[in-house]
């Protein structure tokens, strides 16, 4: 019986599940499909919970940075505040603008939401805890996360609102520009690992802490910082949150979306943030590697949340860049730096000046 890779860690669960299913007389293929479906549901729930938690966390961190308390009245320090928000958004009327582009308007949040989750197929959550270990894992992530920009563009166009359109256009320009430094800084990692599989990337960083790519001097830290900057832009967060710049574009691309459709954009934004942080943890901070007295998935989550926390601190500290400065920064600073770094890394790699 071949199971999904992740099953090695969740073995007892799937053993039991396949036993139950086989006793009903399903064929092995059906059992496999159902197992994947169950895995998908588990992943989806876990991510949704993480996204809701991140919203709460963001609000608490913002509040404490601003000498407030944030949500306090609903549960311990307002822990179920965002659950209440989600239930409320479910009940809200789904406003459909009369002048919308019907198909585009409808599919934009769906694509945004789905694309946000797709990346987790190849995300190594822990030792042997991955849905599928593609040999092009990182390339796949880069490809599917870019779907978000299509969704935002669709939302901007479909709403038939000038603010939304401006937001969509800004986001397209921004994400396309920042994709390049992001990929270039990821390439330095791939260059050393020699494989695009996420599992290979993590295992190559095992051993002691200085095997982590962030400690590969001199190019590692540079790649990490440039990656983090590009990732912040990719996840549309301050100081690069110009697509939904509240003070200029009211709410940017999601200005005409209400209720659940807005919630989908909202959750997708936080999942994207988690994705880029998880990638940062996997590529530069050794993934799930760590002392074995803590389970590997806990290491992964700890590192990811660390990066998320850093991004939140940045968000609540800095003002927002202007759209042309944002592009200038990408093309005139980040792209040259990341490519120079890539060349440096290549030279070091082939000269063998590394450990």
């Amino acid at each position: 019986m071949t199971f999904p890779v992740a099953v090695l860690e969740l073995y007892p669960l799937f053993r039991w599940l396949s036993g139950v299913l086989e006793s009903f007389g399903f064929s092995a293929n059906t059992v496999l499909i159902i197992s994947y479906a169950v895995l998908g549901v588990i992943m989806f729930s876990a991510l949704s919970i993480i996204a809701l938690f991140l919203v709460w966390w963001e609000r608490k961190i913002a509040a404490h940075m601003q000498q407030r308390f944030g949500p306090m009245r609903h549960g311990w320090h307002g822990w179920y505040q965002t659950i209440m928000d989600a239930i409320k958004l479910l009940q809200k009327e789904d406003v459909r603008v009369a002048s919308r582009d019907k198909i585009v308007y409808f599919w934009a949040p769906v694509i945004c939401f789905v694309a946000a989750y797709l990346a987790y197929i190849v995300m190594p959550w822990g030792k042997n805890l991955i849905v599928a270990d593609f040999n092009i894992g990182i390339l796949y992530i880069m490809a599917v996360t870019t779907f978000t920009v299509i969704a935002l563009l669709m939302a901007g166009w479909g709403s038939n609102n000038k603010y939304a359109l401006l937001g969509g256009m800004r986001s397209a320009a921004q994400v396309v520009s920042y994709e390049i430094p992001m990929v270039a800084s990821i390439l330095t990692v791939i260059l050393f690992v020699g494989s695009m599989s996420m599992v290979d990337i993590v295992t190559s960083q095992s051993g002691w802490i200085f095997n982590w790519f962030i400690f590969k001097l001199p190019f590692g830290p540079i790649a990490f910082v440039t990656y983090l900057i590009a990732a912040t832009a990719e996840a549309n967060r301050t100081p690069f949150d110009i697509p939904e710049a509240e003070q200029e574009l009211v709410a940017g691309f999601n200005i005409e979306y209400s209720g659940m459709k807005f919630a989908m954009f909202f959750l997708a934004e936080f999942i994207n943030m988690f994705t880029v942080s998880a990638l940062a943890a996997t590529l530069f901070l050794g993934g799930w590697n760590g002392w074995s007295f803590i389970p590997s998935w806990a290491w992964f989550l700890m590192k990811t949340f660390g990066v998320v926390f850093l991004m939140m601190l940045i968000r609540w500290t800095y003002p927002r860049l202007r759209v042309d400065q944002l592009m200038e920064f990408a093309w005139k600073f980040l792209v040259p730096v990341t490519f120079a770094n890539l060349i440096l890394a290549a030279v070091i790699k082939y000269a063998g000046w590394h450990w």
Partner: protein
Amino acid sequence: MGLIKKLPVYTEKMPGGGIVMTSLEAALHNAQAKSLWYLLFGTACCAIELMCTGASRYDFDRLGMIFRATPRQADLIIAAGTITKKMAPRLRLLYDQMAEPRYVIAMGGCTIKGGPFYYDSYSVEKGIDHIIPVDVYIPGCPPRPESLLEGCITLQEKIKKQSLLDWQEKD
């Protein structure tokens, strides 16, 4: 919202539908009451007090209230400040743009009855209840942040007491 609007019709017919309804109502209205997102709408003096209420000392966020800039995503208009005859159609438009269920708090004397001073003004709308339905009135010129918070808590109580059947009839 479409589905939830139809729910009462189905559940009421079920045996024990009343019990299902009340628990559902409790859950849904609890959620609504606990996450009131208000529209960033302020015209005059009360808007400054609204900002102060959002700030550190009073902190709206404790009640789960955050501001949204677009009316589509807001549940609540806190009409803070004088509404003039020129502004009245725009306020109506904002209210129409909001997604149901939506609530209105009239903050300050001007929104309640044209204000303590503007009764002989030619351009002030004498009370916003001529334009949009109001749920909670908060008197004061301008009301203190504490009274605004009190008004919001009153609104939450009011939402919790609603019945799903009310929505049915509204439609």
